[in-house]
Each structure stands twice: as C-alpha cells, then as structure tokens.
C-alpha cells in the first residue's frame, strides 16, 4: 500500500451507473426475442426509458411498453405516460386490473388497495404477448429482499422468483437464457439509489409527472400517511380533509400511495430532501409494504415486479 494519489477517476458515479444501465439494456435486447419495458410513468421507469433511448441511439427504442393499470392511477400520471409514449413514437400495451374485477377473475380487496392485484394481469400480458425479457425500474436499495435479487432475474412459468436458487451473476456477464414458458426480469437500475435517480434526472433534464414536486392538495391522514381523496379511496366520516403542501415520492395506486409534506418544488429541493430524509422511500409511502417484514419477498415470489 502506498500513499500516492491514484490517477483521477475519469467517470463519475453517475457516468458509471449510466454506462452500466445502458450495457445491461443492450445485453438483454441482444439476446431477446420480444422484450418489453414495464412503464408506469413513475420516475424509475422513466429513467429506464431514458437509458433505453441512449442505448439504441440513433435508432428508436426497439421494444414496446407495458403498463399494468390498477385503475387507481393519478390522472396527471396517465396524461404524462401517454404524452411520453407519443413523443418517442413507441407502442404502449395496457393491462387493466379493472377488466379482471369486472369479469370476476379478481376480487376487490377489503382494504381497497389494488397493488397486489397487479400480478395476475402482468403475468397474463407476458404470456399473451410472448414477452421473454421484461425490463423494470426496481432498485436494490428500495427494500431488503430486493437487495438480493439479480440484475437479470429468472422467473418460472408462474412468474415466481426463487430467492434460494438464483443464478450467480459474475463480472458483467449477464445470463438471460431461459426455457420456453420462463422469462427474465431485467433491472438496469439495480445499483442506483433514490438519490442517484434524482441526480440523474437533474443532470439529464428528464421530465417527470408534476406529482413528484410540492403542490397544494386536499389530503387526509391515515395510518400516518397523507392520502388524497380519489375515486379509489373511501373517505370515512372520521377522516379530516385539509389542504397541505405535499409531494409524492412514488406514484402508484392512489389508494395506498401516500404523499409526504414537503416544500420541495424543484429538483434541487428534492435532492436536498432525499439526502437528508430519515425514512426510506417505501416505508414512508407504501401502506402495502408495511403489512409484514416479508411483504415484498412474498409478492416477488408470486410474480410481482
């Protein structure tokens, strides 16, 4: 060991993460028959789509997008989703949880949340469209079970993740091989943190749905979260609705995605807030992840994102 100063790094953390993400996307597409990106209009899937536009430049993104629509989405997010798809000249497939509820294949849950109901429409869409490589925006820093998932994650005929029997992932040699009926989920942002995502959004000037920034909104408190009165949220007599300045850290099912009180109106504000925040992203805003310590692990085993 010497005390000499090493040569200065040529790539910053963000440069390295971007290059890795592009490498992963190109590698998966290079071996795929029919890839697809799970696109909700949420910030992580927006960043994956941005990386894809860079990976295939000067060609268009060579795959379609799939949104599993709970029917409980915020209007602003759906508007943003459709505008983004049109701008890039891509094709969007929508798998609707509502269709499954309407024809009785799925039943509404007593707590009203539809996030756990997304699994069946997702797996049906994968089978119907014969997708073999499914890109998602999940990050390992979100949750303890995700911290153990591979960048390229094999799913069986039921879409299930087997955490005890994962393939070793060696060097940057990703292995998307699978048998007929199986598919792989690919997570190009595996090594990104929430702060990295925000830094990248700032550095690249990426547009997001306006919900991510502080705005005044009618909300009420439930289970320590700020929920917004929405078609999908049953407001009880005891709920007190008030106006607060809030923003969303994730934009999922309106019935279980909570807002946080925040004055952060710009990307820079959000970065400062994320850096100093004392509660993890999912802990703060996703009621369904709080159900048990193993909530996410169970859902992934059932084929969830």
């Amino acid at each position, binding site marked *: 060991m010497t005390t000499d100063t090493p040569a200065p*790094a040529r*790539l910053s953390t963000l440069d390295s993460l971007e290059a890795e993400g592009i490498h992963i996307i190109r590698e998966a597409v290079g071996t795929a028959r029919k890839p697809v990106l799970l696109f909700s209009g949420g910030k992580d899937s927006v960043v994956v789509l941005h990386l894809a536009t860079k990976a295939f430049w000067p060609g268009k993104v060579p795959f379609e997008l799939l949104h599993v629509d709970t029917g409980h989405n915020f209007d602003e997010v759906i508007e943003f989703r459709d505008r983004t798809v049109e701008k890039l000249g891509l094709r969007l497939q929508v798998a609707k949880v509502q269709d499954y509820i309407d024809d009785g294949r799925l039943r509404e849950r007593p707590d009203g949340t539809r996030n756990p109901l997304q699994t069946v429409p997702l797996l049906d869409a994968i089978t119907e469209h014969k997708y073999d490589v499914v890109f998602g925006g999940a990050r*390992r820093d979100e949750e303890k079970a995700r911290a153990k998932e591979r960048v390229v994650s094999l799913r069986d005929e039921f879409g299930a993740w087997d955490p005890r029997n994962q393939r070793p992932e060696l*060097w940057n040699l990703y292995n998307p091989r699978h048998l007929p009926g199986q598919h792989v989920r690919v997570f190009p942002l595996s*090594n990104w943190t929430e702060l990295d995502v925000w830094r990248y959004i700032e550095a690249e000037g990426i547009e997001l749905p306006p919900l991510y920034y502080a705005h005044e909104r009618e909300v009420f408190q439930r289970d320590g979260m700020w929920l917004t009165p929405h078609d999908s949220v049953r407001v009880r007599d005891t709920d007190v609705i008030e106006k607060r300045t809030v923003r969303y850290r994730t934009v999922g099912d309106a019935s279980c995605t909570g807002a946080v009180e925040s004055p952060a109106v710009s990307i820079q504000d959000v*970065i400062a807030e994320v850096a100093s925040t004392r509660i993890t992203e999912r802990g703060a805003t996703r009621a369904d992840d709080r159900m048990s310590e193993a909530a996410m692990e169970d859902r992934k085993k059932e084929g969830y994102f």
Partner: protein
Amino acid sequence: MSAAPQTTDALDSAGVPDTTRTSLLRFATAGSVDDGKSTLVGRLLHDTKSILADAYEAVERVSKERGSEEVDLALLTDGLRAEREQGITIDVAYRYFSTPRRTFILADCPGHVQYTRNTVTGASTADALVVLIDARYGVVEQTKRHLAVAALLRVPHVIIAVNKIDLLDYASGPFRSISQHVQTHAESLGLPNVICVPVSALNGDNVAERSDNTPWYEGPTVLEILETVPSIDQGADAFAAAHRHGVTHPGRADAAAEEIGWRLPVQLVLRPQDAAVSEEYREYRGYAGQVAEGTIRVGDEVVVQPSGKRTTVAGIDTATGPLDEAHTGQSVAVRLADEVDIARGDLLSSASDATESTKTFHAHVAWLTDRPLRVRDRVLVQHGSAVVQAMVTTIDGILDISLPGGTLDSSIAKGHELQLNDIGVVSLQLAQPLAVEDYGNHRRTGAFCLLDPQDGNTLAAGTARAQVPGTADESYISI
C-alpha cells in the same frame, strides 16, 4: 459525460455528496462464520450515516424481541425471511452508501453457505475485497480460501480487517503476528496489494474512525482505504497487471493501461434505417458496447475477432454527441472506416496487442452448481457478448489450499471431477474460436462463464490462464 470527478470532498451547495463529481468503488466483504462481518458492514453503514431512521428502528425492535440489550447492527443486512428465521445470511446482498469522497457498492458475501459461490460472485466485480479475520483465531482455512479466490479473480486490492481486537484488550502482538502470516500467504499467492487493519466492528475502532485504543497502529482506517484506492476506471486492473510485471507505483498504472491497449465486446450492431430518430441517421452503422479495458481513440487501428479483419476507428458516438476517446467502463457506439462483417459476439481490439482467437484454452474454473463437472461434458462458454458451444477435454486437478507451498499453481491436487464449490484446472475445446486472453493481464476478456446448454443455468466462473501449473514451458493458451 460530466467533468472529471474529484479525489477530495465533493459536496453540492446543500452539503449533499455530489455524485456527478465523486467516483464509484465496488467492493466485496468476505468472512467466515461468526467473525463479525455483518457487524462490520452494519458499522460501515451506520458510521457513514447511511442507515435511515425506519430501518434502524426495525433493527432496534427485532434486537429487543430477541432479548438483546444492544442494537445488533448485523440485523441490518438480513434480507430474506429464511435468513431472519435461521439467523444466517444466504445470498450475496448489495448495499449502497456514500461519503463526500466516494460512492460505494458493497457486495456482502455470506460465509456460511456456499461461501465459494458467494465470494466468487461478489469478488468478480470488486475493485477491492475486505476479508474478515477473528483476531482470536488468526488465519483459518476459510481465510486462505478467501485469499485464494481474491488471487484467482485478481481483485486489485485486499483489505484484511483483523476484527474483535477489543476482546484481546487492544494488544498489538496478535495483530502483528496475524499481519505477518497474512503477508507471507498473500505473497505466495501473488496478491499485489494487501493491507491489514486492526478493528473492532462492534465498537467502531478503525472502521470509519481512527481509534484511541490502538496508538501502536499508524495506518489508515478501513474506510480511508476504501476512499482512496484506485477503482477499475482509474487503472486498478492495469496496476494489478503491471505489478506482476514489476511495476510497483500506482502512478504508472495509466502508462500500464496504455500498453495493454483496449477491448470492446460488440453487443449490438446499430443500423436504424426506418427506425432512425432522424433522416440523417438512416444509413448509420455503429457497433455498440461497453469498453472492457483501456482507452479507444478515433483513428486507432482495430482488429476484429475472431475474423482477424483490420480497420480503423472512424468515430466514437454517444446519444449526447461524439467523443474523441472512450475509457474503461463507458458505453459507446464505435464507427469503423471500412465495411467489415461484424456481429454481436465479436470482439474489437486495439491492433497493437490483439490476442489471436483460439479454439482450445486452459482455465481455472470455480464450479458453482450441484451436479459435478466431468471430462467430455458439453457446456456453453459465455465470453464477452459471445456464447459458443464447448467440451471439457481435461480436468487436470483441484485447488487444495491445505497443501504446502501455498501458491495457486502448486496447490493443485489430483482429481477428475469438480464438485460444488471446487476450483479446478480444466481444458476446454470450443466449437468456434474466441479471443480468450490471459485473465492475469485482461480481467474482462480473460473471464468467462460456463452455462448449461439445456436449461441455460450458470454453472461456473472461469478465468483463462496463460501458463499451466508445473509446465511453464508449455503455452497455456494454444491455438
């Protein structure tokens, strides 16, 4: 690409580490049972303020439920339900933390189950490896195994955390004798850069903060080392390779990197035609890939492998504009001066030092699956972006770290099949030639995986070797 990252503190105006300016280091941790690795990882996360309130509270709650008075930082890293139930770690887990100087990706490799599989996986991407030793027991068999894996995978920097020194009243004697033992062993394995640090993960001595309890130790803390060692894109690989050729000064790593040229596995041929983002790129033709090593410059002479055709680099493109040069780790598209037949799986190399493609080669193979590997087994070799059929022609021996001598080459015991977690020396015959290079000099193009041709599963990690153990006169990679 943003401006050159800082080697000193990089904070933005809000006092937040600015990752557009800090560099990234990937490191792995390995240790044997009960040596306190999870506590060390928890301590690093805790002392760098990387643990969020709700995560800490959850750990506090569980610690109490289990009847422990102190907060068990080790619990921060238990991810899966089976792990929590059994109180052990099963699979490699990835952790993220940062300081004002650097961002870290930590591959936390458990020592309990399948430690070879896990350590090989974690070490394959690591710029540095932290190996835990319990100061009360010193170098044990698993320490030797971890060091052998570090040597095999050419991890550029190895940090030995001699843990639990608080249990020995912070005495210097045991640390000094363990250091001696480690250095002797590391030298025989050919590990270039090993540094020992006396720590107490439980109390935080010399992990992130220098300890008053060890006035006899003047070296850096574990975190200080991690903040300053060169990463891959700073020439860490090149330095490790150069070291084996007698260069001991890291400042010369850049020069060494120049000498070993560059490599780019072709992932995709970009020919947009009707799908071009604008009409001017209709006829564009570029070769997309991530620079595996070295620096590509416009005008460089290129050899395409395995065809052996030659041309020159006409341009280096990214979505945000052309580059004059591209460095290790960058994802780019390269345009070539001549129309050459190139497909996914081909390798572009700097012409000055390109290796010839081969259909037979020798390698160390870490066997990572339940069923054994036998001679004449058919496998797939995944090398860069290529996958080709292959057959195992010989299994020449199995690494046995308990044999005297201690070098990777002298520790080969007889054996004709590889079992789970064995590291063996094998020869492979390929159906199509590949530009497999000596792993000692080329960490990316010397690495490969073996895949199951039937179900596609990953069977083994391989490192190609230029010299056969005990047969120095025979070329290890032959055509």
